[in-house]
């Protein structure tokens, strides 16, 4: 096995094939990342970047608790969004993949539409619906319910609603593809072996759809930690998340070193969480 790997690495054809990808990754990802890291060791003076090497920015990051409060809040919201999305997406994806197979193409087109509809439009739409004087309260008032029955706009709940609404298609699509690829004969074999519908689902369908659940979770988590619109528009800006903090630092404070440092912290923590979960998931899989 080792010899085979070694042989592959010596294969010039492989290197040629990999070269465009390596160049792309280096110039478009690695180089900006290194630049961002270098930027954190500079300072700003009179709103101007001053190329003086120092650790002031990192000292600031590690001594001011509010950065970590916002980061913690961001991680919590992203994880909550993952859980809610998966719980909602799984039955939808399962139903679409098993009960509505005749409409397979139409369903895929509809899911694609969800991706290409502008998130700003959808988010502002929720404001009109959830506002004190919005459509929801108007309808409830006509049903005889108290005024302002729906009163959770500009709260974390509204932010979570917006996040789930905008990111749900990612979970539905990945889980749908995963369930759609499960061999039907495996489920039939479980039935032949005497498994009930629930047991066949629990021991065959669910484990085999795990890659889709995992892919959807990672996607939603990473997109969730970077949300900007939902906390601002639906959350009322009172519980800022990391993306807004970074925007404020770069744009309003023109403190690029601090903005770069906060960006790196967010990236590292998000990657760490993903790796941690993948390890836990891997251990559970090995245990099973």
């Amino acid at each position, binding site marked *: 096995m080792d010899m085979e790997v070694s042989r592959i690495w010596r294969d010039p054809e492989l290197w040629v094939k990999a070269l465009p990808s390596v160049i792309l990754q280096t110039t478009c990802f690695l180089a900006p990342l290194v630049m961002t890291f270098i930027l954190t060791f500079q300072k700003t003076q*009179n*709103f101007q970047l001053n190329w003086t090497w120092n650790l002031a920015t990192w000292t600031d990051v590690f001594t001011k608790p509010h*950065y970590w409060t916002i980061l913690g809040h961001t991680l919590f919201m992203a994880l909550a969004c993952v859980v809610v999305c998966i719980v909602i997406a799984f039955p939808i994806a399962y139903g679409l993949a098993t009960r509505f197979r005749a409409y397979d193409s139409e369903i895929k087109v509809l899911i694609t539409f969800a991706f290409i509809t502008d998130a700003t439009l959808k988010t502002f739409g929720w*404001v009109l619906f959830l506002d004190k*004087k919005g459509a929801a309260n108007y309808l409830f008032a006509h049903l005889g319910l108290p005024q302002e029955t729906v009163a959770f706009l500009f709260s974390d709940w509204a932010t979570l609603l917006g996040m789930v609404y905008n990111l749900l298609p990612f979970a539905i699509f990945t889980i749908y593809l995963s369930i759609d690829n499960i061999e039907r004969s495996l489920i039939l074999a479980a039935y032949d072996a005497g498994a009930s519908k629930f047991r066949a689902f629990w021991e065959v369908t669910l484990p085999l759809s795990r890659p889709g659940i995992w892919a959807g979770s990672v996607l939603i988590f990473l997109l969730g930690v970077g949300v900007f619109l939902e906390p601002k528009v639906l959350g*009322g800006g*009172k*519980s800022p998340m990391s993306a807004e*903090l970074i925007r404020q630092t770069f744009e*309003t404070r023109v403190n690029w070193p601090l903005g770069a440092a906060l960006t790196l912290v967010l990236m590292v923590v998000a990657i760490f969480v993903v790796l941690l979960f993948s390890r836990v998931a891997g251990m559970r899989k090995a245990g099973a």
Partner: protein
Amino acid sequence: MSKNWYSDLPQYYQRQIKAMGLDEAGMNRRRMLKGMAGAAGLGLLGLNTRQAHAATQMTYMCWEGYNDPRIIDPFNKANDTEISFDLIVDSPGGFAKLQAGASREVDLVSSDMPWITRMGPAGLAMELNPDDYTEVYADFYDQFKPPFEPLMNEGKTIGVATRWGWVGPCINTDVTKPEVWKTYDPVFDAANKDKICVMDWGDWPILPMALHAGINPYEPLDEKQLNEVRLVLRAMFKNTRTLVGDLTQAQKGLLDGSLLGCIGAGSYLTSAVRKQGHKNILAIVPEPKNGLKQGIIWVEATAVLKETDQPELAQKLLKHVVSKDAAHALALLDSTCNVVTNKAVESVFTPEEKDILQMDYMWHAYDNSQMHRVAPNIDEMLAIWQEELAAAQ
């Protein structure tokens, strides 16, 4: 040794440039960048021949509205120019972009006055000779004529004020009375919990709150004063329903009465709604408190970049932007309406337009306001804002 546009390039290319005679052809980095940008633009736009025939290309960094065809087209026609726009969405971002190198491509900038002022010490803005602008200033309100201290750097004028307005509570007179807002007290009244909106526009909400706390944010502040700012922001967040960055969200809340008042904004927010016929939406300024004026006058200004390769044309454009016809268009845009610094425009305003702009109120607002300029401790105050916002979660 003199530095030229290609001296940063490797020696090989420098020799090639010299060999091709490009070093003596009046070529410079700015023209090369513009030429490249122009060529790329033409390629992408499928060769718009009318534009391609313009003799001179210029770049104008400005807020949306300054690029209105009613303002720009007459200038392009009269001077055979093609102006491309670099629209800014926030003044600090525009300033940072200029410092990051955009100053080599931009000829003219229209932005918030403190950021135009900062262009002086940063070495970005060209010093203007007020004598060259005698005709322009002849039409100006006295308040904005030189020597206009907020736009001066070391005694030199570095920009011309274009339009202005006031920062103060924005209210709906159907749900509250202007008399109630003679101070910022309603912002902190527990009875108004979840009825106050704060515009999340950088320093805009911070400075009025500092004034309310008895602190003049335009003077250097010590730790004790900064702590007062912290306390007043903390109290403000307790009562705040929402922080909004988008004008329309605040305008909607004021119109439907779900918001009692909006702070950190002012005439910039209310005028467009008034233009739609909602004259019950007002921008007012509180009365002075313990001798400290509570309102803030914001001013937008225009400056010529030091590195422009067309200083005369850029100054001509500056004069055009503040001219009577252009200023009239600038005062009444679809997105926002604001008074301008050119007094001559008053003669072309209709009574309805004057009412939209609250012109009967503007000098009262001016007299009860601080002039918005560079606040020495603004970065500390912005950091405090972030800390208190995080703590309020």
